[in-house]
């Protein structure tokens, strides 16, 4: 059960990472020419923040998939 939980978390993490990366690249590709240093913070907030958050969350899930998987399956293993 633990193995399955780890696998599920890794799958989710990977999906989030790929989605975040895809959105980041797409947004950069579409708007990088519109970047204006005056509005740098707004650019980050508007175009990059959410993809970066998705990537970050994906990374966290990938990195901590083992302890998370064990934690989530602990009751099932005891039975």
């Amino acid at each position, binding site marked *: 059960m633990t193995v399955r939980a780890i696998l599920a978390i890794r799958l989710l993490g990977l999906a989030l990472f790929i989605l975040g990366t895809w959105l980041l690249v797409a*947004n950069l590709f579409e708007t990088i020419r519109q970047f204006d240093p005056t*509005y740098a913070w707004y*650019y980050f907030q508007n*175009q990059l923040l*959410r993809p970066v958050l998705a990537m970050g969350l994906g990374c966290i899930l990938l990195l901590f998939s083992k302890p998370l998987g064990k934690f989530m399956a602990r009751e099932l293993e005891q039975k």
Partner: protein
Amino acid sequence: MGGAGMVCMLIAGPAVCASDSTTLLTSLKPLSSESGLRATESKLIPSAAFVEHHRDQLGSLLSSLDLTRPDLSSVSRALADGDLRSACAALLLYYQTRPSVPIQAKYGGDIIVDAEAALLNTFSFQGVKGTQPTASTGGLDWEARGPRDDPEWAWMLNRHGYFSALALAWKQTGDDRFAAKVSTLIIDWTSANPYPKRLNFSPSWRALETARRVLDTWPLTWQTLQDAPGFTPEARLLMLCSLLDHADLLQHYSSFWGGNHLLTEKTAIAQLAIAWPEFRDSRAWLDYAIDKVEEEILEQTYEDGAYKELTDHYQRVVLVNLDSFLNLCRSSGRDDLGKLEARMRRMWAYYTGIMQPNGHGPLTNAADRENIAELATALQAPEEYLQVNRAANPALEQPQTTFFPYAGQAVLRSSWYSSAVWAFLDAGPYGTAHQHEDRLHLDLSFGQQEILVDAGRYTYQPGPWLDYFKGPHSHNLLLLDGNCAIRGPYSTKTPATITTRTGTGWTYALAEAAFPANPARGLGQSTWRRGLLLLPNESGLIVFDEVIGYGNRELEARWHFAPSLSIKRTANGLSASANGQAGMELLILSDAGWSPATLLKGQETPEVAGWYAPNYNIKHPATEAHFTAAPAGPSITAWWFHNPAKRSNINEYLSSYIRQGESLTLVLATTRNTCTVVLPSLEKGPSEVSVEIRGGK
């Protein structure tokens, strides 16, 4: 001989007429015999059948009176003798002869016309006229929703506003048909609508309608018709009996969720207590009303004086109610009203503070076009808030921004003169009720001429019309990808932030909002800043719109013009005229690449567009201009609304727009002068606003 004297003679004979009512009531005892009644046939004696049929109700009515009052001794004596019918007659006679009590109700319509129509069961409510159908009982159908199948119609019908017209028509003409009609309607209404004794939303006993009857109609009708032969004793007694039900409902089954309804309902209790002080509980009702109204007014209005629904119309409703309430309380000798009086001054300060040079208010949220200046004069608002006094105040002659921090609204005006340029920016909370999607909406007037307007409310009936008037499309806004800015909170406990700056001859206000995120594309919210710069010499207003968005985003601007304006496209903007006179010129200075305007007026399909509703149920075609753009990245647009009343016209070829990052330099050349505006950023406001006269004065 007056009505009282006539009744006196009918009941007890001429010998008794010279004496007072106590003596008269002593003589009522013999009336308990049928022969006595037949002999007198008094207009104030209810029929025996009526008394028998309503024995319980009448018993409750009489037992709820303060019979220890000396002026009701005749009633108590008749009751002690077990003579209910005589007690009722004595009570009615007392009411006919008692001194008048303070009431606040007035009638605003054409009395005779409305009363004549009411005789035929034809009524006009909120601009709609219709004849009410009859029910199977032969009386009116009190729940029918009128020609437009609108619940508002049934509510208005049950407010009985036409009672006032009928009563006043009787007073003016002496024509007893009017009084008799009131009697018929009261008897019909009370029999068709028994008191449900619970919270309910029926048109007849919805708490607000119950309150409106007590506040606006019944006291006036009661007092006016006392001498009317057509106002039958049966109708009078049913009205009195029903008052107890009204008081019970207003105390125990009112609109617990608050809002202007609850305030009106509690004010009505005070009116009831003051108009009918003979009830044993009247004193307690008044104490209760004062406590509740104070609590609700302080809860439902902001410290800056704005009513939390943030609508011009309901600000008026609450203010009129509060004014009426305070007058009633003062007339009954109450002087513990300090908190309410202080809050009312703030409410006046807000209400008159948002007023346009023509005296009207902006149609924020669900509002009608109402004249604040006339109301302030009629209700004797504190003198410092009267427009004429302000215009005479040198301290108020300069351009200024008045900011109401809780309402989140800024008013920019060049002066308090009638020719002033006036602009209104709404950046506050959504409102606690009657909300419209109008974040960062603005209104504009050049003197008496309204230029940019809010389209109003028109209807509460769900459908495309409500969607239009309530939604962003009827406001002067930007839309990003079809979305309006994210609305504010319903209400706030903290003041809003609007940047204001004032310089020599100009004043500036800036507010900020955001367009919603697009999670599917990983996009965050897009910031929208809207700055208003009121130019020197009443020469106009510049609206700055800075939108910080990226990618293939479609930006749309909608401007709604007053219905009196005729709008034409120009090479780079619009021009407006009213009655052949130039009213406004709009020049667009921008790097966003705005398309030429699409002008819509009175359109119903494929979507509703180009309408203006000065009042509920009334709408007029009015031009609406749509501009679209797909800016590459952050853009700043300057919408230059020029006032041609200053006898100069825009020369767009000499005008210029220079933007570097956040900073902007604008030049507007007209046939008479050149105006230069330099903004380091919208947030900082203008660093230079200069007007240079070209070619001499």
